[in-house]
């Protein structure tokens, strides 16, 4: 894999170096041209030279080379000199890194490619793509400011999710509950570190950031746009990147917390699930939400709507539309919109590092909490429970469940945990939507 990284960086430099060189050359040659023209067309020399100079001042090269004080971006926010020059180049590099992760590594490409491209476009100097009237700015207004896009994605997720494995063994939902400690534990940690002066987050910001531990994209975008819109870009990037990195982050934690014997536990009991049960499930969950936590109802309402459309079996065409066209269109729009927050002036701020670190902590803590809960349940319950499936409770559907399965198989190749892990996995989605509702009820 390392070879491929080097290859990619080489490929990148294939693009970047000559462009840099050419940019300089073109600068010179354009200057030369100005002179040449100035001689040829004497009568209007000053006019045309001025025109060329004005044009030169509108090039991106000029903007990169001559950052200025007090410049504002398309949305009226100030951009420092560093952000205008190196900042944008760094961000462009980061978006290329996201492309690399998406394409060569296969990490959440559906989101990282639109987000990365949105970020690329957001870092173009002088263009008005993310402002009012710019197309990404318009998309942002159309669906992020008013929560519409993450909600529509959640409908699609609901329509794509089979809750059967959870219904076959409902008590594994508690593993999905435990893993939400990634959220609330991180909240405490973030606040503590802010008190110690390591970070500088308000309570509300800390809460928003901790939701990354929910390992759920739309929930993260939803909460970020409500509680901390300024941090949206970094939060979304952190959430999707770590979700993609689940196969890297989780296994060491899972192995550290379990014995080989525990990892070899085979799970057997699975009760039969009827179609009627699947159909009632979204309604049951929604009624519970209404009774206990109305603030979660946009998220859980959308999820259960999609799932009800799926399981009702009588509106196949709506179900297919939710699972395909609608979610695809919204994914493109959401990705580009979220990407607009990768503009240097929003991303290259001290908070970003804190978000990236805290997000990673949240993921790890959530994984650990899920595994520990699995160990506890294994001891208390009659039927054996393999603690590895607790790690799937963070959600990150279906990656986390697959990781649990794989780690189990490493110990015993005949031990198929996949379906057992899907229960806590989908419960984790509900769990983090509940956690989001708690935050919304507080703030």
């Amino acid at each position, binding site marked *: 894999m390392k070879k491929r990284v080097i290859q990619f960086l080489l490929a990148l430099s294939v693009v970047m170096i000559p462009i840099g060189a050419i940019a300089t050359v073109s600068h010179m040659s354009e200057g030369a041209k100005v002179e040449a023209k100035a001689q040829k067309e004497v009568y209007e020399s000053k006019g045309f030279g001025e025109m060329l100079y004005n044009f030169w001042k509108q090039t991106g090269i000029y903007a990169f080379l001559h950052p200025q004080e007090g410049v504002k971006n398309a949305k009226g926010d100030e951009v420092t000199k560093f952000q205008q020059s190196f900042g944008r180049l760094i961000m462009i590099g980061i978006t290329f890194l996201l492309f690399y992760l998406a394409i060569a590594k296969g990490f959440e490409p559906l989101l990282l490619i639109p987000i990365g491209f949105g970020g690329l476009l957001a870092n173009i100097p002088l263009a008005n793509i993310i402002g009012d009237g710019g197309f990404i700015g318009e998309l942002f207004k159309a669906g992020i400011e008013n929560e519409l896009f993450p909600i529509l994605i959640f409908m699609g997720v609901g329509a794509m999710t089979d809750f059967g494995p959870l*219904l076959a063994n*409902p*008590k594994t*939902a*508690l593993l*999905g*509950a435990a893993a*939400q*400690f990634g*959220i*609330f*534990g991180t*909240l*405490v940690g*973030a*606040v*503590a570190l*802010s*008190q110690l002066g390591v970070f500088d987050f308000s*309570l509300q910001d*800390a*809460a928003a950031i901790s939701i990354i531990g929910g390992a759920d994209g739309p929930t993260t975008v939803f909460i970020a746009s409500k509680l901390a819109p300024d941090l949206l870009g970094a939060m979304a990037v952190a959430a999707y990147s770590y979700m993609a990195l689940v196969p890297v982050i989780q296994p060491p934690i899972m192995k550290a917390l379990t014995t080989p014997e525990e990892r070899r536990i085979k799970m057997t009991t699975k*009760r*039969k*699930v*009827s*179609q*009627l*049960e699947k159909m*009632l*499930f979204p309604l*049951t*969950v929604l009624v*519970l*939400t209404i009774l*206990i*936590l109305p603030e979660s109802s946009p998220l859980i309402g959308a999820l259960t709507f999609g799932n009800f459309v799926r399981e009702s079996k009588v509106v196949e065409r709506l179900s297919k539309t939710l699972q395909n066209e609608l979610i695809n269109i919204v994914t493109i729009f959401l990705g580009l919109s979220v990407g607009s927050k990768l503009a240097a002036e929003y991303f290259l701020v001290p908070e970003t590092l804190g978000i990236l670190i805290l997000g990673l902590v949240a993921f790890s803590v959530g994984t650990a909490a899920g595994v520990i809960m699995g160990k506890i349940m294994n001891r208390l319950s009659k039927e054996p429970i393999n603690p590895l499936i607790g790690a799937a409770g963070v959600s990150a559907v279906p990656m986390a469940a697959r990781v649990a399965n794989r780690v189990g198989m490493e110990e015993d190749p005949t031990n198929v945990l996949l379906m057992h892990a899907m229960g806590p996995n989908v*419960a984790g989605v*509900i*769990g983090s939507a*509940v*956690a989001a*509702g*708690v*935050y919304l009820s*507080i703030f």
Partner: protein
Amino acid sequence: MILEAVKYMILGMGVVFVFLYLMVVVLDLQHKLLMKFFPESFEDSSKEPPVTTKREKLKKVAAITAALHHMKNS
């Protein structure tokens, strides 16, 4: 402010657990009731259609081949 955060943590984890625990309880209850009142809904009706389809497909292919064989021989 840490105290605040700890309180929120307890509240949050409490609500998450209460919610999912209630869900477990209700789903168990629901399952038992459905097993009692709609036992037929638990029969594996969902797994048969694909089998039938495959069979039908095979039959179709067989029929076409037979027809073609017939055509060629005549």
